[in-house]
């Protein structure tokens, strides 16, 4: 059983993708950063309330990541008080919750992204797919090999000692 065959049968929605941060379009960069710090998230999805559909569902309009902080915020004075819309990446490529994890991974490699927002067929934002979700899956899938290792890999008790 290889990783590939596992990931082909595993749906994106079954991975740990639901922990994400979002702000509404128009939020100042300063407040967006504060939210990301509070949530300890390196990615923030930007949704638009005005463009909400009949059922009031917010539409994903952009993605703002730590890379954007490096490229567009840190050196540009005055950006902090501008709306996040000006420094986000608009209309990111998304994936559906019923896509396989293998497909998601392939797509991430093809278009060179570290984040793939998960959006269902009704346009509802459900999560953010990352490589970390795969790492977490592997740890849970192979606990004996991955999770339950001594902190110091060189130690290996030769004797069962003490009670």
């Amino acid at each position: 059983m290889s990783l590939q065959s596992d990931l082909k049968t595993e749906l994106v929605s079954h991975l740990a993708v639901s922990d994400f941060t979002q702000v509404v379009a128009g939020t100042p960069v300063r407040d967006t950063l504060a939210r990301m710090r509070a949530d300890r998230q390196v990615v923030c999805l930007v949704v638009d309330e005005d463009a909400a559909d009949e059922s009031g569902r917010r539409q994903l309009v952009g993605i703002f990541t730590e890379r954007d902080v490096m490229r567009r915020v840190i050196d540009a004075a005055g950006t902090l008080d501008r709306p996040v819309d000006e420094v986000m990446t608009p209309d990111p490529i998304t994936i559906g919750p019923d896509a396989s994890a293998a497909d998601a991974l392939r797509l991430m490699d093809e278009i060179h992204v570290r984040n793939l927002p998960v959006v269902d067929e009704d346009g509802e934002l459900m999560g953010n797919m990352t490589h970390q979700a795969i790492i977490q899956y592997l740890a849970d899938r192979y606990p004996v090999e991955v999770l339950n290792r001594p902190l110091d890999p060189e130690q290996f008790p030769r004797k069962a000692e003490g009670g």
Partner: protein
Amino acid sequence: MSTAATEEITLTRKDFISDQTVRWCPGCGDYSILAQMQRILPETGVPKEKTVFISGIGCSSRFPYYMNTYGIHSIHGRAPALATGLAIANPELSIWVITGDGDGLSIGGNHLLHAIRRNVNLNIVLFNNRIYGLTKGQYSPTSRPGTVTKSSPMGSVEQPLNPIAVALAAEATFVARSIDSHPQHLAAILERTAEHQGASFLEVYQNCVIFNPNEWTELSDRRNRDDSILYLEHGKHMIFGKNRDKGIRLNGFTPEVVSLDEVDLDEILVHDATSRPLASILGSMEFPDYPAAMGVIRDVRKPDYGGEMMAQVETAQAQRGAGDLNQLYLAADLWTVEEREEAEEREITPVASDLDEMPITGLDEEYIDEMEKPAEALSEFQDLLVTSTLAALEPNVPITVGKRSSLARTIRQMNRHNIGCVLVTDEEDRLIGIFTEWDVLNRVAGIVDDMAQQRISDYMTPEPLALKADLPIAQALNLMSLHGFRHLPLVDEGGSPSGIISFRDVVGYLNEALEEE
């Protein structure tokens, strides 16, 4: 009067890791529980010096050595008794009792019952692997009937104890269950266990990789565990299944599993952690007849023993004044035991013993045999995880900066190389820190104005965990999954950076290494 501001010290996971060599078998579920405990304790905000771990005897009971807190590795089964005394004498402490299915339910069954019954303010964690691990594989009080072990060669004929039902029988005010192979769930439930005032009882299904490795297979297999586990949430419907298509309904007094395609949602039970009868029902649902209920089964607030007892002491003192122990002692009937002459004359003859002559290596050899016997049906992929080294990932050459570099220069360098992480080195080119995009977001952007004036050494994460390139990939996965590290530095023998690997490198390599035909 001076009011010196006390600076709040933020603890991290590292602060709770002791310098002791961990002596559990590689692959043991205890590692996972230890890692999650060390992860959640900083978040509870309780200082190290107010935290105590008390254990009895068994593999799980080695826990206090590995926690950098106060701890007592006590007498077999008696951890709850010691902990009760401590909780009453010092109610400020956060006290954890670590026990196992043998220690807590066999020899220590009585102590456990009474600590729970009294609602002593303790966090009791019972590791249940349904086997005696330390004594090398005899059946335990939770082993299923028919379990074949060294002490039950024809299968156990005993009815096992259900730890949740035992705790409920003692009217535990907090009862929960989790499993070692689901670290996120375990961490969340450990936090709930710590929060509860009074006796908290948490059963953790734990894998004994040597003597009972298949006990929890259905519940720990990541591919289909969600079909076997009912995750409880107060106020939520009891819905489970990988596709959340099954539920629990009551048929008279008996719970039954139903398909949501056939049954309306309003027929499905809603979890109520304050309901005593519901707790009993959930406790009685044994896998595989039912999904295993995980999460907080019962959570109610009742006065705790220490508080009630100390209130009585205070009332008595208010009425009758402070007591005098000496006076109390002298008030009793006293007598003196006279030494008898003949007792002196009796000679004590030492019992002849062959024990010194006996070889004591037998058991250890048996243990090593168990450890080294070829693992059963290790898949090619599992094999790859533990045999393939980090060098096989062909790690990128790391970009390094000196510790005197400015923030501005470092960030320019990261942008120029289009990388998310730099390593910081000292004069002798040894790794002393790591600085990532997250640090920029978290500590610099919109916070630091004069980046050219700031040294990188004040903003980096000092002493990062680093690995050597000859370690297996599983080691990197372990650190990445436990800590969420997205980058791991590699160092050579002299501690100089030799490479850097990321989430993407590891996932990419594993994904391609065993390309299917």
